């Protein structure tokens, strides 16, 4: 018999359920994810740091947990909200049950909740702070709401340094080495260096706290800015790096948080979305070709730029919005017209999600190829 648990939202709405994973209490920004597969990748995506993730898919844990699918060394979500956790694991790759894994990593979750009701609430009211309390942590609602309101906001949170690698490390290129890439780890997922390596990149993964000199010291053919958690408006270090790299005309590629970093480096603003994009079914149009890709998303903030296609002048020349989300016209990609730099707000590395956009990694390779040609 699972201990009682309650999900408490900052605006006072509560949902009762049963403890799932570790028993105790936890706080974070409540967000929902609409993916029907890939809970393991989602849980281990550093971008979910400090977030209480609500899964809209009703059955979670069916295929258990294995050591191949994690996108980082640990589970990052601060809390997990599901409707129907699986008792058994059904996959030839499964090594443990998800429940065991959550307990082992001390992740407090809640099950048996009307996750659709929670989702509709967040959709209408916007993402907000939340707390999950189970077992002895369950107390009277007013106190719990109070404590949720005392927990830190996502707006203004600088979190990249909390999830980044402590030490630099290198991922070898697959096959012959064609490029050296400096990857600034703001919450890097494992799939990304894998895709870069496939393009013949030797990937030097550097901590978020690195300086521009650290990055340039690698003598990179290209610089990569990863995805990651927090409010881009407060993450100044990486922005400074990006600006130096742009001045040097070293090719730049950014994903998700990296897209916002490039945007800020170019002088564009960022803002918080009402409830963000989290799922694996978002239709994104590539302006240049009109092609629509079904893409994997995980972002609560977005870059503020004109989506009608008019280029914006920046200290580094013109930049245009290269990709838009067809659901809500949110900026999903930037392309510089006068310096070798581009970025996307979504996840071409997928994991979880469709592989429609993996071509972007070869685009990065071509960009580096081109830059090399022009300098020699």
């Amino acid at each position, binding site marked *: 018999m699972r201990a009682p648990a309650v999900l408490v939202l900052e605006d006072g709405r509560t*949902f009762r359920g049963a403890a799932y994973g570790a028993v105790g209490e936890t706080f974070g920004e409540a967000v*929902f994810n*609409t*993916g*029907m*597969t*890939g809970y*393991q*990748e989602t849980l281990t995506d550093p971008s979910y740091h400090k977030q209480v993730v609500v899964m*809209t*898919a*009703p*059955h979670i844990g*069916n*295929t258990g947990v*294995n050591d*191949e*699918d994690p996108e980082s060394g640990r589970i990052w979500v601060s809390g997990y909200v599901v*409707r*129907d956790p*699986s*008792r*058994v694991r*059904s*996959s*030839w*790759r499964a090594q443990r049950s998800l429940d065991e894994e959550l307990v082992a990593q001390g992740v407090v979750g809640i099950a048996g909740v*009307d*996750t*659709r*009701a929670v*989702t*509709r609430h967040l*959709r209408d009211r916007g993402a907000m702070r939340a707390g999950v309390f189970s077992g002895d942590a369950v107390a009277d609602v007013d106190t719990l709401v109070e404590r949720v309101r005392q927990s830190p906001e996502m707006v203004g949170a600088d979190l990249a340094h909390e999830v980044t690698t402590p030490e630099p490390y290198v991922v070898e290129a697959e096959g012959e080495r064609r490029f050296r890439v400096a990857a600034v780890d703001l919450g890097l997922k494992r799939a990304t260096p894998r895709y870069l390596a496939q393009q013949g990149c030797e990937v030097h993964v550097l901590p978020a706290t690195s300086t521009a000199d650290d990055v340039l010291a690698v003598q990179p053919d290209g610089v990569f800015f990863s995805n990651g958690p927090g409010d881009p408006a407060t993450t100044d270090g990486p922005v400074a790096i990006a600006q130096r790299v742009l001045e040097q005309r070293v090719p730049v590629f950014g994903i998700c948080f990296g897209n916002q970093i490039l945007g800020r480096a170019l002088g564009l603003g960022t803002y918080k979305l009402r409830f963000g994009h989290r*799922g*694996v*079914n*978002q*239709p994104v*149009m590539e302006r240049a070709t*009109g*092609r*629509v890709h*079904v893409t994997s998303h995980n972002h609560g903030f977005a870059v503020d730029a004109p989506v009608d296609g008019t280029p914006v002048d920046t200290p580094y020349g013109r930049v245009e919005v290269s990709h838009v989300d*067809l*659901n*809500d016209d949110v900026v999903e990609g930037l392309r510089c017209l006068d310096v070798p730099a581009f970025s996307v707000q979504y996840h071409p590395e*997928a*994991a*979880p*999600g*469709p*592989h429609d956009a993996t071509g972007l990694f070869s685009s990065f390779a071509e960009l580096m190829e081109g830059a090399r040609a022009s300098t020699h």
Partner: protein
Amino acid sequence: MPRRTDLEHVLVIGSGPIVIGQAAEFDYSGTQACRVLRAEGLRVTLINSNPATIMTDPEFADATYVEPITPEYVAKVIAKERPDALLATLGGQTALNAAMALHDAGVLEQYDVELIGADVDAIRRGEDRQAFKDVVDSVGGESARSAVCHSMDECLAAVGELGYPVVVRPSFTMGGAGGGIAHDEAQLRRIAGSGLQASITTEVLLEESILGWKEYELELMRDRADNVVVICSIENLDPMGVHTGDSITVAPALTLTDREYQRMRDLAIDIIRAVGVDTGGCNIQFAVNPADGRIIVIEMNPRVSRSSALASKATGFPIAKIAAKLAVGYTLDEIPNDITRETPASFEPSLDYVVVKIPRFAFEKFPGADPYLTTTMKSVGEAMAMGRSFLEALQKAMRSLEAGHGGFWTTPDPDGATVESSLREASVPHDGRLLAVERALRLGATAEQVHAATAIDPWFVDQLQQLVELRAEIVAAPDGPLEEELLRAAKRTGCSDRQLAALRGTTEAQVRARRHELGVRPVYKTVDTCAAEFEARTPYHYSAYDEESEVAPSSRDKVLILGSGPNRIGQGIEFDYACVHACYALSDAGFETVMVNCNPETVSTDYDTSDRLYFEPLTVEDVLEVVHAEQLSAEQGGGRVVGVVVQLGGQTPLKLARELEDLGVPVVGTPPEAIHLAEERGAFGRVLADAGLPAPRHGVATSYDEAKSIADDVGYPVLVRPSYVLGGRGMEIVYDDEMLVGYIRRATEVTPEHPVLVDRFLEDAVEIDVDALYDGTDLYLGGVMEHIEEAGIHSGDSACSLPPTTLGRKDLERIRHSTEAIARGVGVRGLLNVQYALQNDVLYVLEANPRASRTVPFVSKATAVPLAKAAARVMLGATIAELRGEGLLPAVGDGGELPFDAPISVKEAVLPFGRFHGVDTLLGPEMKSTGEVMGIDAVFGTAFAKSQAAAYGELPTKGRVFVSVANRDKRAMLFPVKRLADLGFEVVATEGTAEVLRRNGVSVSVVGKHSDGRGDDVVPLVMAGEIDLIINTPWGVGARVDGYEIRTAAVTRGVPCVTTVQGAAAAVQGIEALVRGDIAVRSLQEHHAALAASTRAAQAAT
């Protein structure tokens, strides 16, 4: 890219009659397509021989041809209409094959018609098993090892390589027709033999067996900008080896990690590109090895399929509608998602619920049929349910089936069931296998044992295990009412009040009372394609025991329309047609229409057919809760629930009428007491007596002795049957005491609650079917149908003609008067269907059904009058006079007095015998047909010929006819056979028949009797394809061995086989028409215009 401007006129091909493997779902997709294309301002020409479809309603196309879907007839339509393009990907395999034939015959080229949706090469690559394997290979996918064979020798050789068991799969067929799993040479010879028959390219594929692997399906769409999206993933609970159409299927896939799922998705996208389905939908099936995740591609359908309909209903993404838009040039991103309105169709739906589909079988109707499930599809319908968990959806789907049980625990376990016997039972796939699985677990089998026996994925087994554990808690709970927590837990897993009552030894009413007392009621969630990420604009709901309900308040007067549930023999698409028409008519009349149904194949469950759609089982419990939810919505919004319509969905909703009314639900139309008057034999007898109408002498028996004394009294032969049935279930003609004993023994539950009806059987009587409307004052005679086969062959299985061809004025007057008397006596408000038998000038009443009948759509199309629409209005208080005034009904006259030059419409039934090997194809009082076609023309012969061509393929105009008839038929058979001889047919007959023919100057060659076993009989000739037409009437009483063998051979070889004298006469007229060779095609619109004109003329004359 915007829509193509070079297209102005599109020809859409429907899928023809409902057959196993191709059911109502293609009416749903075709209707959507026609709607879309017309909304785009295109001229739409439609050809479909199935009158029971919504798509063939004249308002859905500019020109609607109810003509056979054969290359010949489609070519005639093309020559007459000259369309720019042909859309054949929405009419199932029938349309696709017709299109291919037209291409090969050069017709498309000759008239410069472009095939849109998928081009010929794409269709070939997708449909031709070997070509497809090459495609799979080219994209780095894997297929099962196999060999294409064109002869039995090639098959035997191939098996040497592949070994047994081996899977036989013919090309260009649907629903696995002619396929199967062969475990030895004998089976191989049988299966591959008929497989070579079934394939239009006499080609079968022998394939390595991968029985027991996990089976999946993906539904994809692609536009001409090469954008591809996956609409839905479907997982089969029954592993490989059971046809998807016969499997319990689940959406979305539940036991794949993202890595495996994405691999499958990548493969599917590469395949759709390589095959070259450039615009529209397609469906690809995969098998996954549970041991190592190895993926094998099974097949693709380069068209909208059965599963696409399921996927559309499961996700809210209307695949057929979008496919039609893509076919005329739009791209996915240009098409709005009409559920969210804001977002485009170029996304992939996300589900926050689970969908379960369970097939509905009809083995009870085909004694002798192999009841095991294999690669040949055998189900006749399906029910779908949604829930917030797998178990909730599964249990709702189970009770939606109306398969004799109300889900788990509602029927007793078989005597002496043990773990072993249950596991053994579960190890062979069959209808109701899940009951055996649950029983095995309940009796103590481990999940591992069940998985080992069934190969059902451990996750699903554990779900059932959880249900078994919950059951134990419920049974063990202290006496008296259940605790709220346990009750909630039970409802969350989808248990019905009836199931709980069964477990607690109380009544459904008590459980319901307890539930309501505790406020344990379902909420209604919304199908929105996006897991609540965006707001849904379409109220498409399903119930769940969860926290928050999403039913919006409304201020309008609401009418609930109860649908007809899963298709089955005796209750098919015709009833959905009536329900859909009620929706249209009532929303035109200003009501808010609320549809309740659980059949994913139908138009009624399209979210834009009614104002609100509840995808729910049709049980008292589920309907009551919907009514309650709508009453709340009315209270909050200031509207009211004015009524519930139970008369249009066939027996399913009719059965609920009384109980619903007793529970305070406003049932509109014919009141339940009146329904009872018509359904209950004694009461109905009194109605007839009062009206002075004769009925066959009859009685009601609750035991053999009673039955026997009635039989002695009314005299043999008698017709016996259980009361309260549709489609003549369990109905038999009994010729003597011995047969009577047998019947009573077989009719298991003969009790005072379930008596047997014993009627005098009227021999050689003409059967007449009537559909009428009654408003309490006036009668509107919708149509009078004269059956071609004599009474004794179920009305649903016999061909009939409208207007009647041999009835005189006097008969029609009698029919009108009798029908009116019955309508008045019963107290009908709405539709009434009466069946009469005319025997030596006495008009007997066989039965009256106070509801929409199977023939309503046929009548509506034959007479150009929307009967069901009018009925819905009458049920809500409109009078026939008012409707005549409105123009919904003709100002004067009705279907009983059609002008003499009115076109003749012939309805022919389509039978599924081809699917059930070794089943007698003889017709009787128990209905066996799955669908029907309509042939319409100025003269009977031609109309009949068309109906045959549509149902079974063209009648022969020359060649050899085999005649073998019962003695009583010999005289009647003379003329037609002589006529055939005059037309140049060579006649072959059995001894007795031959004598009579010879004596009357017909030259005949004699063949022996099969039963003599000398091998000189006709069966080998039929098998050798040397017989073109068979006239074979039953041998009266007793063994019908010969007839049986002959008819079976006929089915195997697809030779037209007439089993009644009347049918033979009609066939001859049809053949004469064909010989004259002047058969033309004419659209319903033309027919209806002509009819209107001559009606006006006739009135002017009088």
